[in-house]
């Protein structure tokens, strides 16, 4: 590996060091100096988790070759404060609850510090603009803005520094109190170690050889050239699995590494463990494969025909159909004054947790296989791993590392099996960190859906019958499709008393990227359809949308769509509170935007005009309000 010597100052320390010449500043900080507060969220300068100061200027350290940092002064989040001596901004982040998973937060603290250094009086619009290069997937940014504004006011002397400590201790009960997050100090200072930040002695690095075909038979896999790469300790394939080789959240249909055939682009085929990341990457590039392409399926409607089968032994592409039947829809539609039929669709969505998938595996002195990973379900993972590795449960130990965002995406055990195989084979610790691109292309998405909807309703707004059919693309493996179909079916018709309901959800296999668990788990897709069609009905019935919902909403004692008696139903209270919270002007939803009187209230943000701040806001602040 090429080396070069650099001279620089990091957090006030002078450093003269020989480094890998291909390193980016971020690699040097993380791998050579163990300053892991700077995170790698995307490796392409798009997310800001790696933000540092270079000669006082905010820089994304994943974009700077380490050679260019020579002679410069670098400042990282570790220099901003420690958990027991937080900077003003860090205290503000702590107080407002601005850190959730915490992975973006060191970068946010750096960007916020830069914002207030550049302009200690920055207003909210300038703060938003300055921090526009840092992505947060958890907080919705609101508490982060609150923190920056609070710190600004303390720094400028407008607020007493005591405002940063403010926390009114509850007298009677801690339940209902805004107790400050106990994990925040470690997060706002970048001290909390996520899986990719962890190192062990003699640790190997794993890289994965992935399918470039959507559907193909593996005719030949030649590892000989890869094995010859210096530093390679092990290469594992499906042949190395000692136990029952399958896993999945609901249906265990996925092999740890592709067996005989690949079913989607990005599917893992072989994993290499080597003493350096570079050697592992080189070995992956030398794996040779011959495919025999198979006809592939990309459309769930086509999948339903079962002409091409993704998992032949199931003899069908249907992963799960959930039916719900209540009353008689034909009779219900006959009683309706109005029948509306519409189609709805939703797209596949990436979780985009800021922490890419990462994990560490090693074998303990007593033979226990240990996996450290930011998984959302290590309880289930250990069960699956014990079968895969043919080990009793007590010899499989999962340790949860801090999760840098999950949203359902980290429920699937898609890389832990490979790590375990490498650790068992080498008896050395092995670490794997996905790149952002690898993560996006190989991990599960929110189920894209198509919904056909038919609703019958009387002229005074009472729903008489609902018929819903949703088809979802589950992609190449089952993952959480079954559960997603179930929740979509149970909740889809909404919080309304419907005597006659026919609901069907179908999830199918295709050769697309698998679909899996994602926050709101199917209910988002079907309830979107319901709440859209209700507004269509409200317009046709000349009725306020709140009113239409009130006419049909559940009350305690009602039977749900699955005929469960509700012990409580707060929807009436929720609608009343919402209507007054938003100062809603009653009326028919017939595109009356232009004539509404409830628009432009104080609880809106300014509409955003690119560069408005620089152009004296021609319309931004004055125009609308």
């Amino acid at each position, binding site marked *: 590996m090429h080396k070069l010597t650099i001279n620089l100052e990091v957090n006030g320390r002078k450093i003269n060091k020989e480094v890998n010449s291909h390193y980016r500043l971020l690699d040097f900080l993380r791998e050579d100096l163990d300053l892991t507060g700077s995170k790698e969220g995307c490796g392409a300068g798009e997310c800001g988790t790696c933000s540092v100061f270079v000669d006082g200027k905010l820089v994304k350290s994943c974009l700077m070759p380490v050679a260019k940092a020579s002679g410069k002064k670098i400042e990282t989040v570790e220099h901003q404060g420690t958990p027991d001596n937080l900077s003003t901004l860090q205290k503000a982040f702590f107080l407002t609850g601005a850190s959730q998973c915490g992975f973006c937060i060191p970068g946010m603290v750096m960007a916020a510090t830069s914002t207030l250094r550049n302009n200690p009086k920055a207003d909210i619009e300038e703060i938003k603009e300055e921090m526009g290069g840092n992505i947060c997937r958890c907080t919705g940014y609101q508490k982060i803005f609150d923190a920056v504004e609070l710190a600004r006011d303390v720094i400028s002397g407008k607020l007493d520094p005591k405002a940063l400590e403010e926390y009114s201790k509850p007298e009677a009960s801690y339940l209902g109190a805004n107790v400050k997050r106990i994990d925040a100090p470690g997060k706002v200072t970048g001290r909390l170690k996520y899986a990719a930040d962890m190192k062990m002695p003699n640790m190997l690095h794993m890289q994965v050889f992935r399918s470039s075909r959507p559907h193909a038979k593996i005719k030949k896999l030649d590892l000989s050239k890869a094995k010859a790469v210096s530093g390679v300790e092990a290469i594992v394939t499906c042949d190395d699995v000692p136990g029952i080789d399958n896993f999945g959240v609901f249906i265990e249909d996925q092999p740890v590494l592709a067996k005989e055939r690949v079913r989607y682009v990005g599917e893992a085929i072989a994993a290499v463990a080597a003493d350096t990341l570079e050697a592992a990457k080189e070995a992956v590039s030398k794996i040779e494969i011959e495919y025999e392409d198979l006809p592939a399926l990309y459309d769930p409607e086509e999948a339903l025909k079962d002409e091409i089968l993704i998992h032949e032994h199931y003899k069908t592409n249907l992963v799960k159909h959930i039916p719900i039947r209540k009353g008689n829809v034909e009779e219900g539609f006959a009683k309706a004054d109005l029948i509306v039929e519409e189609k709805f669709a939703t797209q596949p969505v990436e979780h985009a947790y800021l922490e890419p998938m990462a994990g560490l595996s090693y074998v303990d002195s007593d033979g226990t296989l240990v996996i450290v990973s930011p998984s959302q379900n290590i309880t289930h993972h250990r069960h699956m791993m014990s079968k895969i590795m043919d080990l009793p449960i007590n010899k499989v130990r999962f340790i949860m590392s801090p999760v840098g965002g999950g949203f359902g995406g980290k429920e699937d055990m898609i890389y832990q099996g490979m790590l375990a195989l490498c650790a068992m084979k080498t008896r050395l610790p092995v670490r794997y960190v996905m790149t952002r691109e690898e993560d996006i292309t190989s991990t599960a998405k929110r189920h894209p859906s198509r919904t056909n909807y038919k609703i019958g309703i009387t002229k005074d707004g009472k729903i008489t019958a609902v018929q819903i059919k949703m088809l979802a693309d589950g992609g190449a493996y089952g993952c959480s499709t079954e559960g997603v179909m179930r929740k979509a079916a149970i909740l889809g018709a909404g919080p309304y008393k419907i005597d006659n309901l026919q609901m069907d959800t179908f999830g199918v296999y295709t050769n697309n990227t698998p679909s899996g668990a994602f926050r709101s788990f199917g209910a988002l897709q079907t309830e979107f359809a319901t709440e859209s069609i209700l507004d269509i009905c409200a317009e046709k019935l000349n009725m306020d949308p709140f009113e239409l919902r009130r006419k049909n909403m559940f009350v305690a004692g009602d039977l749900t769509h699955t005929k469960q008696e509700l012990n409580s139903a707060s929807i009436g209270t929720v609608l009343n509170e919402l209507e007054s919270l938003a100062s809603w002007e009653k009326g028919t*939803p017939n595109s009356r935007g232009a004539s509404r009187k409830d628009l432009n209230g104080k609880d809106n943000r300014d509409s955003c005009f690119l560069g408005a701040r620089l152009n004296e806001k021609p319309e931004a602040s004055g125009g609308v309000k």
Partner: protein
Amino acid sequence: MSLTKKRGRGMAASWYGISRTAAMDQAGAWAEIDDGGTAKVVTGVTEIGEGILTVLAQVAAEELGVKPELVHIGDNDTSRSPEAAHAGATRQTYMIGNAVAMACRDSKDKLFNEIAKEWNVEKETLQAHDGEIWANGTNYKMPMSEAIHICKKKYGVIPVGSGNYTSHNTPLDPVDGSGSPWQAYVFGGQVAEVEVDTATGEVQILGIWACHDVGKAINPKGIEGQIEGGVVQAVGQALMEDYQQVEGHTTTGSFAKYILPTSLDVPKVTTKIVEDLDPLSPLGAKGIGEPAMVPTCPAIMNAIYDAVGVRIQSLPATPEKILRALDEKKRKSNGMAIN
């Protein structure tokens, strides 16, 4: 204001089930009142950012009568901590919160047994809060640190408690889907205010008003954070995020191609928490993680319709789709005028 920018509002309601769907759900926990009046809680909890560790520290502090900052929550480790299952299904506050409450009650009961002997009072008169223990109707009072010292050194008892919580969810009938998939349900609703530019098709979400029932709100600020985060994820789904593939090959493999909401895209979110306590569980708390984002997309689509009279039924509502729909609407109304 520009002539092409039109504002409108829409609303949507929602509901959601709490904990694992249509299957028995259970969680376990251990608790111990520890030296110095501190506490140790161990459970298979997964902090994914929602603030569950803080919620559990509050629950333990309340139940044990210690300060929340003196509660230590052990790491989730399948070989070292009781099973509490997954971080998902909006279940952690409900399942693990109640399991921790039960474990703490067990631990406190063991401490109270010994302190009742020490003071020669009925156990039922004892109370503890915020680091102090006292007997109602007497002058007896001491710090928890002293109480735990007496419990251990004089009576030889370490007050270790364990707890479990079960949600008795039943499977659905395979033919008609009947069943009781959850014990607890939450309801919500949101209003969206949008500005649609009819020249560019661009939509800006200016305000979201979110009202959600969460049961007992243990940490209101944390709940607000969940709602704000959920709303913004849904803004992504509503307007911009779109994972695309061509014959199985991803064409949106980076954040340059896969567009996420940034600080410039997000609405102001105004939250109102409704507390309809769960009648079946010790804490009365339910949950908010997933339900927070359910009503957002339809509220936005209804608001776009209110603003410009086009209804987007296929997400996301990209500028291209809005322009196409506006075009079609214009053609239709022109056609009608001619006829």
